[in-house]
């Protein structure tokens, strides 16, 4: 029986969350994960699954120290994400933010630049969605409490 990749991935994801965020027992989680690897799993699947089981026991990598450029770009992202106004104004804000963030990324180090630039992935999609919405933009909002 082949490894159920989605089931194993989901189990690993849940186990890592419990270990890192809820002080879950690493050994117990590893036992549960190993039980999901069938005896006749392919060598490739086994290698992948076992590497994730072992990863669970490794301490999480230390948080990265970001430069001021990263934080500056993050503020631009946040402002554009919550920009109000007309649809045209929101599109303009998102577009301007994308350009600003990419310009900041160009000034950052080779290591940090890609992660700064990645801040625009969501902004770009929101902008596209405003230009060509999945459902009408003027639909009334749901009731709020």
């Amino acid at each position, binding site marked *: 029986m082949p490894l*159920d*990749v*989605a*089931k194993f*991935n*989901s*189990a*690993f*994801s*849940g186990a890592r*969350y419990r270990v890192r965020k809820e002080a879950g027992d690493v050994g117990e989680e590893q036992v549960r994960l190993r039980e999901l690897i069938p005896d006749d799993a392919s060598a*490739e699947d086994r290698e*992948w699954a076992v*590497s*994730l089981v072992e*990863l669970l026991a490794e301490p999480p*990598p230390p948080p*990265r120290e970001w430069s001021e450029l990263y*934080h500056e770009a*993050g*503020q631009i*992202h*946040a402002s554009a*994400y*919550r*920009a*109000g106004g007309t649809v045209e104004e929101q599109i303009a804000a998102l577009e301007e933010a*994308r*350009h600003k963030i*990419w310009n900041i990324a160009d000034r950052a180090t*080779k*290591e*940090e*630049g*890609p*992660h700064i*630039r*990645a*801040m*625009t*992935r*969501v902004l*770009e*999609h*929101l902008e*596209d*969605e405003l230009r*060509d919405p*999945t*459902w*009408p933009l003027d*639909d*009334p*909002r*749901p*009731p*709020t*409490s």
Partner: protein
Amino acid sequence: MGDDRLVPRDSAVYREFVRLYQLVREMRPISVDRWNGDLYATDSQRWGGFDPRTGRIRLSDDRVLRHLTGSRSEADPDAQAEALATVLHESTHTGMETDAPTEPNAVRSTHSRGLMEGFAELRTFEDFDAFTRRAGYPGLRVYEAKYPGAYAATESLMTQVEGARLSRDAILNAGTQGPVAMHFDQLAEAVVRNRLGEVVPGRGVDRVRVRAALIATMTHEHWPTLPDRSAETGQAVAEDIRRALNAKVDEIRRHYRANPTRPFPADSPNAEAARTAVREVPAATAEARNAGGEERSAVGEERGEMRFLSGQAPAAQATRLVPALGDGSRGAGAVRVPGARRASAARPGPTHPGRQ
């Protein structure tokens, strides 16, 4: 876009993208395959994305495609990490249905647009290690977004609704299937199961209305747009939502303690669908409603409830979807690439003949 170039299907980069795309689809339950198999390269200052109108995917040549080499880059691992994160993010979008116009609890607003992006980023962050190891790019790293935005807002909601009966991971699995307009309904269902399981009757009408009431607390007027607010206020909004959610849970408990047979009163977020659902109730069911007092107006909503619980799509889109919350749905609509983990085994050419 005018300057975009169609990537030849017999090219190495196309084959590598298909291989990665298939790997992503294996790693979570998905409901659809919306990609039409056309991949475009762009030189514009964009990462690229999936176009739901055409079914195409376009990706930055410089920021994404040139990094899809089949092995880890020693020279530029950060750039390669974000390129692979983009593949993961886009492949999540194509596996997720979007609209649900006939569902009473569909939230067809800006809130859901933000939550859609939040789920895609959350999934990308959550699965990045497992995906890159499986794809042959081990040792790369991406970083959880700490600034206010779709990721932070979605993460905040997840922490408020997760629990023992419906875990964070189960919610994420439901989210990767969509429909996007039902993401808030999925979060509300988590609250029902985790905090109100012994309180709310199993009747569809009760559960749909309770979820509608909970959705209203989560779609805070300042989430996700948070207009003119500072980051600190973003935290305050999260706290506002937490308080409103807790208060509503208490109110629902009090209601059912005093009125166990009366459905909780709540307005549907998609009022038009709720009205249509009631109009479409068959005659025999209408008779039962007339005799049933409190059951009236509920049957149409109950059908929506059953669709949600079974993981099925709204009827109007049923032919494009397969049951989602079960297991057996992965890769639906797509031909699996045998041995997809190895670049050399990836098959060139179209891989999705059955797509919409």
